[in-house]
């Protein structure tokens, strides 16, 4: 009897486990196949109303568990259109452009809610947007200005770090250009539409898009993204200082800073332009094509003479560095060891770069200091290369003497052997 009781107990235990497993299995299948009548219908549609499962699955919101109803309301579990898209079920339909920032902000401006998804995500985008020209115009009733979905896309919104995102640093300029390069669209605002064309030729675009340097600036780096300008910047033309710190410090102390400010000139932009910034070169200090100083200054004046002195000094150091390079290359090709001087050449080049930065102080004495420091190193390096060649000649002379001595010894030995064996 005891055996039977034990057997019944075992049978009961097995049944219980199987039943629990069945519940879990059914629950999982139901969960995995949660009904979404929105996508079932809209995936068959085309145009603005068409949203496929494939597209929506790429959206960060879908990946975080949000569904169509999270923004549009309604009842996605019903396949009855009148029930699924009933106002009673909270259906909002297509979101009015003017309502989009507020709708996105209903979650993205809620720190408590956003913390549950991504604690590091900012929650001030909507407030920032209200301070921007886009936000202000939208508030004044201009529905043409950019709202969240114009930049971030819709139904396939990817995080900015995703290279396919429209707001990934590499893609931002192209995203902005969709409106800002459209002359017809921008006509009523009376602003240029060549920014993207100019930016595409710039050193910044080259660094970001060609060389993949994500620290290089794009539109939002200077103009801000949700807000107007980056924090601490009173005017967009001063934003250069955020990256070009030393140049900005030099410029701030210079005579040009005050004069430009008084005349309302846009600082760095006066010489370097804004969107189409090309790689600066010493040609900018010249008087020919590409020269910038003489646009304002008069030939022969005090500033022109200073300009000529600075240019001459830069050329002098540049030439000295090149000559040292040549001397070291010749020595290296002769097999001489000049790696220490080769390493020091970096210091000479750094001094040249520093002098080019110091130009922004517009003080010849400061530039001269950097030039002198660089000249000292470049001259020493050139001498190291030339000394190495003198040493090489000395070695060859020594080799010649040794070979003669060896030759004499060989002849002597041969004569001795011949005498010995004769």
């Amino acid at each position, binding site marked *: 009897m005891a055996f039977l009781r034990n057997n019944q107990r075992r049978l009961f235990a097995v049944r219980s486990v199987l039943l629990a497993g069945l519940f879990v299995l059914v629950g999982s299948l139901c969960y995995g196949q949660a009904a979404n009548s929105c996508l079932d219908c809209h995936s068959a549609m085309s145009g603005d109303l068409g949203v496929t499962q494939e597209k929506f699955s790429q959206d960060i919101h879908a990946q975080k568990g949000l569904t169509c109803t999270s923004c549009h309301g309604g009842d996605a579990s019903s396949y009855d259109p009148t029930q699924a898209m009933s106002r009673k079920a909270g259906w909002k339909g297509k979101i009015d452009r003017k309502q989009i920032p507020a709708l996105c902000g209903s979650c993205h401006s809620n720190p408590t809610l956003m913390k549950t998804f991504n604690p590091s995500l900012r929650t001030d985008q909507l407030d920032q947007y209200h301070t921007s020209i886009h936000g202000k115009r939208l508030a004044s009733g201009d529905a043409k200005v950019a709202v969240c979905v114009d930049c971030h896309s819709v139904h396939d919104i990817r995080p900015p770090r995703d290279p396919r995102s429209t707001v990934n640093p590499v893609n931002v300029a192209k995203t902005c250009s969709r409106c800002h390069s459209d002359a017809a669209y921008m006509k009523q605002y009376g602003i240029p539409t060549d920014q993207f064309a100019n930016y595409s030729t710039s050193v910044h675009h080259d660094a970001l898009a060609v060389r993949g340097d994500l620290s290089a600036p794009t539109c939002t780096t200077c103009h801000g993204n949700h807000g107007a300008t980056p924090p601490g910047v009173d005017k967009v033309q001063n934003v250069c200082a955020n990256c070009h710190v030393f140049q900005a410090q030099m410029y701030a102390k210079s005579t040009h800073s005050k004069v430009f400010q008084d005349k309302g000139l846009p600082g760095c932009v006066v010489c370097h332009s804004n969107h189409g910034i090309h790689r600066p070169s010493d040609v900018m200090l010249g008087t020919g094509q590409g020269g910038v100083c003489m646009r304002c200054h008069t030939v022969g004046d005090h500033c022109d003479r200073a300009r000529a002195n600075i240019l001459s000094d830069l050329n002098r150091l540049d030439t000295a560095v090149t000559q040292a390079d040549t001397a070291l290359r010749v020595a290296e090709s002769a*097999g*001489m*060891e000049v*790696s*220490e001087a080769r390493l020091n050449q970096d210091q000479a080049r750094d001094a040249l770069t520093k002098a080019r930065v110091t130009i922004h102080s517009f003080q010849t004495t400061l530039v001269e200091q950097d030039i002198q420091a660089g000249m000292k190193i470049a001259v020493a390096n050139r001498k190291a290369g030339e000394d190495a060649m003198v040493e090489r000649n000395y*070695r*060859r002379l*020594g*080799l010649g003497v*040794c*070979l003669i001595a*060896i*030759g004499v*010894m*060989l002849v002597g*030995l*041969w004569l*001795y*052997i011949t005498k*010995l*064996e004769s």
Partner: protein
Amino acid sequence: MIASVVRWLDDRLHLEGLIAPLSHKTVPTHRLTYWYFFGGITLFLFVVQVLTGILLLLYYRPGANEAFESVQYIMTRVQFGWLIRSIHSWSANLMIFTAFVHMFSVAFLKAYRKPRELTWVTGMLLLFLVMGFGFSGYLLPWNTLAFFATKVGTEIAGQVPIIGRPIMIFLRGGEEVTGATLTRFFGFHVAVLPGIVTVLIAIHLFFVQRQGMSVPPQVDAEWTANPSARKEMKFFPNFALRELMAWYVAVGTLGVLAALFPWELGVKADPFISAPAGIKPEWYFLFMFQTLKLIPSKVWFIDGEVLGILGCTLAGLFWVMLPFFEKDKTGLIVTASARSSQIRTLTGGLSVFALAYVVGMTIYGFLAK
């Protein structure tokens, strides 16, 4: 003056008894005698290695943070440091070259025949050790090429089944090539290998001294047919003076190479950068490296690299055992005369094939990308 010093020493040490065997020693003189010089030249270059190595030791500092800088210091600041280092590097390469020439000359002249089997074996061991000198010394300047060549070389050693990985970890002093590897290689290069090589050289020279110089079979046959043609010269001073002339030529060659092509230092090793494209080992490992490169990654079910390493090891072992495959009626293995002759022809063909293979693969390795 010299004669009086020698007399003074002889009175006390009886040097006459030591020198007497040398004065009685003779060297066969024939049209192939000049091949005898290569052993002596190799020995001379080994002495050059020891002397220049000791001088380099005065300034060299083993360690990942100091090795490169210390060699740079030797090359730029130490008086004649460039010359000593360049001679050390060139002499190492010349020594391996002359050791190979010596080995092949012995193989072609069949000087390994009975009773010189052990002389051949000790010579082969010396060649392997000399290549070990090259491999361990190559890393010591701690430059990029040396770093990655050592990485590749030890990786290849690690492919040997079962014992490969422990050997690789032992050689590297860990999983990766680091400063620990450098210290270890330095120890091998300046202590372990010189000790073993010195003992083996002594044994090798003792065998040569006891057995005398081998006469090539064809010359021997000519002399047997015509005994009046047999010629010999005294080892001391006749052969020794000729050997001295060869050493002078070696010194001159080293001087030319060191002065015109100083051994370059390269760029300091950086373990975090990727290996330079087309990196190759030193020329004396190139034939093996190229062989491994040519073997497909999988041969049937065996890993290609493992197969290559096993093949090279077996070929090396076979080459070391070469004298034992060639026996005559007086040997341990009694074979019919005709069969013995066939074997002799086969070993001769093998020597030609080995030389052609080593030279051909080395050239191919140089030209291959």
